[in-house]
């Protein structure tokens, strides 16, 4: 069981990809519902909400296909997003919330922990082996 992982999608990465996938679906679906039903209420917040969904989609894809550079860049964007949106958002703006609002409080703070786990995982498995 302690075999070294050859890919970002094996071992712990298997679980990480699934969690990213859940958030890709949750964040994107949430943004689409917001934009479809109340786009005029807070267009900027909903656009950011959609952006967070796209970031999770790319991160899921990159981790699932062992594209480490893309994964690294995307997860850094994700970390920046959750920290900036988390700091700027007001906890009581429920209708304007995205997954990253209030540091992901509405999602058990998983959005705040996830990029750290992702970066740790990328650091842990290191560079791809040229001999596969």
């Amino acid at each position, binding site marked *: 069981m302690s075999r070294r992982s050859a890919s970002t999608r094996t071992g712990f990465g*298997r679980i990480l990809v699934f969690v990213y996938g859940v958030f890709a679906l949750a964040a994107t679906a949430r943004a689409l519902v917001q934009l479809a039903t109340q786009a005029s209420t807070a267009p900027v917040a909903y656009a950011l909400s959609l952006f967070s969904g796209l970031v999770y989609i790319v991160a899921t894809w990159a981790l699932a296909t062992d594209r480490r550079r893309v994964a690294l860049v995307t997860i850094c964007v994700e970390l920046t997003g959750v920290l900036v949106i988390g700091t700027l958002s007001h906890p009581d703006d429920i209708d304007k919330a995205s997954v990253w609002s209030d540091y992901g409080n509405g999602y058990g703070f998983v959005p705040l922990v996830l990029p750290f786990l992702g970066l740790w995982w990328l650091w842990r498995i290191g560079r791809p082996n040229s001999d596969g």
Partner: protein
Amino acid sequence: MTVLQIVLAAISAVIALWLVVLIVRDLEPNDYLYAALGLLEVGMIALLVVGLVQVAGDHGDVNVAAYVGYLVGSVVLLPVAFLWSIGERTRAGTGVLLVAVLVVPVLFLRLHQLWAAR
């Protein structure tokens, strides 16, 4: 939460404990576990049907799009987790099932909150 949601949440809790035991003892999921997951999935489909009937009826101010979104998401969750987990039959693959089963009650909580806003 509805009775069906409470029963399904209890089933997920039992399956979650079961999965923890499998992970700790480094055992692969057996057919009984997959049968239990299948039972849970049947319950999720029933929940979708009940939810769609509710939404078609008198639903007040419920956010229908979000409500249906969570219902569909809860039906999709377990099959996707199953397919992704069998790709790697290790503790990690079993861990994927554990995450999915832990997400189930969270979805019920959201459904409950959305319906309570009626």
